């Protein structure tokens, strides 16, 4: 208690001295003046005249200026000038060992930078609320399973029916406002140029009012826009305005044609508003029309609500569930409501993002630990080399606290430099990552805002590094036996051994897990899909909207297909609703009965020529014919799994009839080999039924072309064909099928690459630490080496002498690291399903890499030591 009080008093005084120097000086002046005045008064009382008294008092006092200086030095112990002097001194010291400074800064910058990058994304994902005014009262509302990936499907019951939304909106007693949105598919958008396919976000007219988002240019969507007979309007997001509208400041008031219908652009939203569907970035917003008390809209909605004052989430939940029960009583279909906090990220993306962040969070913390370990090794070596200097300074009367301060300032400078460099690198890499737009239906962007949390985290990480790698060795340095240290260099310490083993262990762990992760993740991207995607070119068409009824779509698809299959350079061509394995537009599965059992069957709508185009072998029967495509006859082709599940096999299947649970009949005309239709499914093949695309011509069919030779010339074929048929049409998703398949795995692939890179980084840092240690040890033992060499030891014997110890350290480190990697693999297989990070190949590879790096970092210094001239070394030693 007493001690604590005393510390507090002292700290307060020092802080005041440091921060409010002028008031400290003023106090000193006042105190000395008072003394002088009292002395004068004392003399006057003794009988002197006031003038004589004042003179006598001043004479007795001496020089008040020098007195003031002395007191100031006591009261302002950590004088700013003194600090500055120490900083300059530290800079000079660091200048004298530039390699140490550089390696330290780079290693720590890597460690801090990696952490700041991950933190800034986690900050965006986990902490950041919706971009809105007063976001604390906002919640997201969904049906059951709103936080599972299923909610990403637009038809999933996690999203809410438009009619239900209106009921919730109008009957609730707990919300100030309830708005809804729906991510629409790519829409044909023409504005002062050729048409483009741009995804559109549908929002209820009260959406922007609820969020409190104004227009940066013009105005947002307002309730009047949804009324019957109102002009058709759209609003652009900042991203959409920049990407598709050339940042035109006069865009407001111009007309844009969506699916053939002119709309007026009434506003551009501010840049801070990134939408409510993060990480997806909406480009254009359209109002969901509301007519006569119903929404003229057929798709399920995602809801956002603003809670009323003093309403808790639980109360709102109960309120909505009460209404859901009423709705269920009305139509008999069950409903449930879930409420999620108003985070920036949509709930269904949160789980995968959290898993990814946690994985990388652990990795980057280990990288920072390795970097700190590395720097601790270097600092300890440097301190050992400086023991003599420090001992001399101590014996010349420098106080230990002064030396600690100076060493700490050196470390602080390095850590500050590393913190700044790391943060800058993190911001740059994050900016680079946020510019990455995956061309999935809605542009996907990692949002990143360097707010105060990120900056404080960077400071915290640097401080952590400072304590770990700067102060600990500095304190150690001071436990120095003065006399011994001045006389001779100290022996390398046992602590070194621990640091090196820890470093090798951590590097090994990261390397093994990184390699294993990359191995299994990249393995997934190249797994056989059961068809040949190589060289196949794809292009999608948007046939949604006014003027494109089913008949028009059917004839357009057939026209385009007939033209492109005859075009030069095309070996085969087909149109599909859902691109195999890319799974870009899944068709709803159907239930079929067979022998009293019900089977869920995956469905795709395809034209003639698909199996030819993708090289999927026809096992029995025939392919679709042009007549099947035009007449939509009730025929189908099944895969082998289905044929096995329903009948004896392929041969028996042809000619059979499938009955779905609504009485529809499908005659089987052919059987094809199984092919993996949906990526990254680890289960056994599912039953598939292919039906003619003419049955239900999709709004966004994709054409696939197999080239007879080079694929690239075919990229423009569908686009040019379409333009001759319908100038308002546009082809999108124009790319090689291989590229598209890789895109679907882009997150997994980047995770694999990043974890591999982290492993490599760990290896690099580990090698630096090992090399520095070995060089130092070799230097320390040079006299011993020289004596042995002089006594007849061969260079090989000398080398083995110097490499035996590090070999032992490396081996222990590797074994510990292997154990850690096994532990990590248990954790990993829980976070990432389907990934088996325990991988003997990765262990062997890592062992080889660690071994090689250890060999190089110990052999080089050892060889240098063995090549020294023993006589010269010994003579140097005498003189030193």
């Amino acid at each position, binding site marked *: 208690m*007493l*001690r604590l*009080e*005393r*510390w507090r*008093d*002292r700290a307060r*005084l*020092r802080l005041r001295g440091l921060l409010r120097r002028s008031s400290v000086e003023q*106090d000193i002046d*006042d*105190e*000395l003046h*008072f*003394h002088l*005045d*009292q*002395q004068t008064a*004392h003399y006057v009382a003794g009988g002197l005249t006031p003038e004589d008294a004042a003179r006598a008092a001043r004479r007795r*006092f*001496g020089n008040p200026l020098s*007195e003031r200086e*002395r*007191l100031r030095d*006591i*009261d302002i*112990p950590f004088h700013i000038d003194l600090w500055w002097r120490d900083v300059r001194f530290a800079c000079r010291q660091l200048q004298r060992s530039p390699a140490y400074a550089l390696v330290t800064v780079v290693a720590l910058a890597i460690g801090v930078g990696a952490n700041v990058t991950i933190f800034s994304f986690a900050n965006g994902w986990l902490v950041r609320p919706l971009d809105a005014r007063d976001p604390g009262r906002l919640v997201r509302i969904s049906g059951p399973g709103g936080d599972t990936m299923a909610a990403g499907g637009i038809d999933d019951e996690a999203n809410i029916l438009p009619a239900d939304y209106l009921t919730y909106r109008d009957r609730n007693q707990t919300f100030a406002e309830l708005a809804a949105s729906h991510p629409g598919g790519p829409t044909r958008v023409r504005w002062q140029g050729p048409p483009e396919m741009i995804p559109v976000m549908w929002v209820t007219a009260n959406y922007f009012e609820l969020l409190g988002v104004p227009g940066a240019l013009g105005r947002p969507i307002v309730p009047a826009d949804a009324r019957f007979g109102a002009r058709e309007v759209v609003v652009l997001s900042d991203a959409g305005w920049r990407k598709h509208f050339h940042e035109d400041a006069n865009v407001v008031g111009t007309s844009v044609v969506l699916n053939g219908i002119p709309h007026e652009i009434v506003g551009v939203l501010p840049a801070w508003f990134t939408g409510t569907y993060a990480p997806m970035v909406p480009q254009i917003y359209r109002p969901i029309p509301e007519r006569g008390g119903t929404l003229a809209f057929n798709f399920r909605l995602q809801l956002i609500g603003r809670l009323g004052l003093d309403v808790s989430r639980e109360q709102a939940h109960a309120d909505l569930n009460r209404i859901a029960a009423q709705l269920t009583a009305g139509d008999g279909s069950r409903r449930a409501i879930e409420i999620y906090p108003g985070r920036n990220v949509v709930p269904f993306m949160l789980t995968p993002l959290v898993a990814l962040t946690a994985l990388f969070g652990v990795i980057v913390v280990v990288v920072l630990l390795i970097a700190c370990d590395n720097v601790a090794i270097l600092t300890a070596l440097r301190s050992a080399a400086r023991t003599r200097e420090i001992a001399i300074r101590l014996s010349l009367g420098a106080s230990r606290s002064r030396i600690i301060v100076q060493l700490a300032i050196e470390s602080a400078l390095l850590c500050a430099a590393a913190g700044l460099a790391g943060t800058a690198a993190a911001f740059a890499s994050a900016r680079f990552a946020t510019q990455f737009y995956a061309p999935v239906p809605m542009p996907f962007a990692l949002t990143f805002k360097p707010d105060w949390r990120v900056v404080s985290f960077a400071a915290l990480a640097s401080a952590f590094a400072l304590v770990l790698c700067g102060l600990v060795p500095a304190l150690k340095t001071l436990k120095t036996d003065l006399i011994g240290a001045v006389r001779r260099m100290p022996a390398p310490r046992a602590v070194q051994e621990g640091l090196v083993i820890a470093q090798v262990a951590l590097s090994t762990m990261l390397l093994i897990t990184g390699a294993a992760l990359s191995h299994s993740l990249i393995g997934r991207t190249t797994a056989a899909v059961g068809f040949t995607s190589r060289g196949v070119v794809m292009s999608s068409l948007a046939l949604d909207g006014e003027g494109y009824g089913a008949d028009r779509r059917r004839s357009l698809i057939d026209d385009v297909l007939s033209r492109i299959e005859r075009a030069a350079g095309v070996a085969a061509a087909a149109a599909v609703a859902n691109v195999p394995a890319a799974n870009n537009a899944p068709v709803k599965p159907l239930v079929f009965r067979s022998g009293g059992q019900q089977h869920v069957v995956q469905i795709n709508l395809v034209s003639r020529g698909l199996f030819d185009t993708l090289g999927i072998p026809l096992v029995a029967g025939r392919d679709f014919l042009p007549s099947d495509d035009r007449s939509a006859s009730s025929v189908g082709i099944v895969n082998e799994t289905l044929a096995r599940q329903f009948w004896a096999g392929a041969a028996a299947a042809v000619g059979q009839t499938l009955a779905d649970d609504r009485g529809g009949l499908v005659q089987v005309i052919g059987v094809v080999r199984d092919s993996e239709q949906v990526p990254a499914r680890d289960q056994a093949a599912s039953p598939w039924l292919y039906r003619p695309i003419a049955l239900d011509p999709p709004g966004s069919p994709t054409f696939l072309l197999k080239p007879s030779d080079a694929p690239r010339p075919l990229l423009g074929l569908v686009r040019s064909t379409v333009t001759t048929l319908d100038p308002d049409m546009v082809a999108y998703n124009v790319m090689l099928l291989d590229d598209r398949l890789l895109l679907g795995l882009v997150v997994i692939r980047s995770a694999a690459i990043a974890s591999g890179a982290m492993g490599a980084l760990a290896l690099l840092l580990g090698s630096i630490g090992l090399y520095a240690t070995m060089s130092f040890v070799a230097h320390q033992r040079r006299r011993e080496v020289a004596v042995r060499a002089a006594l007849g030891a061969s260079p090989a014997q000398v080398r083995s002498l110097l490499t035996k110890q590090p070999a032992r350290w490396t081996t222990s480190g590797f074994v510990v690291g292997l154990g850690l990697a096994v532990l990590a693999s248990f954790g990993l297989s829980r976070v990432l399903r389907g990934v088996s990070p325990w991988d003997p190949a990765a262990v062997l590879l890592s062992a080889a890499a660690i071994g090689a790096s250890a060999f190089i970092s110990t052999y080089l210094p050892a060889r240098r030591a063995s090549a020294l001239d023993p006589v010269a070394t010994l003579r140097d030693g005498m003189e030193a």
Partner: protein
Amino acid sequence: MSRPADLVQGTLDLLILKIVALEPINGWSISQRLTQVSRDVLQVSHGSLYPALHKLEQEGWIKAEWRATENNRRAKFYSLTRSGRRQLEREAADWKRLSAAISLVVQLPEN
């Protein structure tokens, strides 16, 4: 005025702590009080007094506070902290041991 006895090194702190322990007091009064109490034997110059006071304050043994004097002038008054009291006891005990030891030595009979 007789030449003041040189203060034994380190005893000034003890003297100041003792004087300050009696009541809160300003710097000039400390020097006056010291002279009075020691019957003019101990005279401490301000050149030693103020640095010693400020050092004791930095150590946390005494604390300072600006207050009005009897004739209503603003002056810096020092008073003892709790840890200062402990320190005073320690230093006083040390001094007693030391002076007793020195007395023993000085009183050795000479031949």
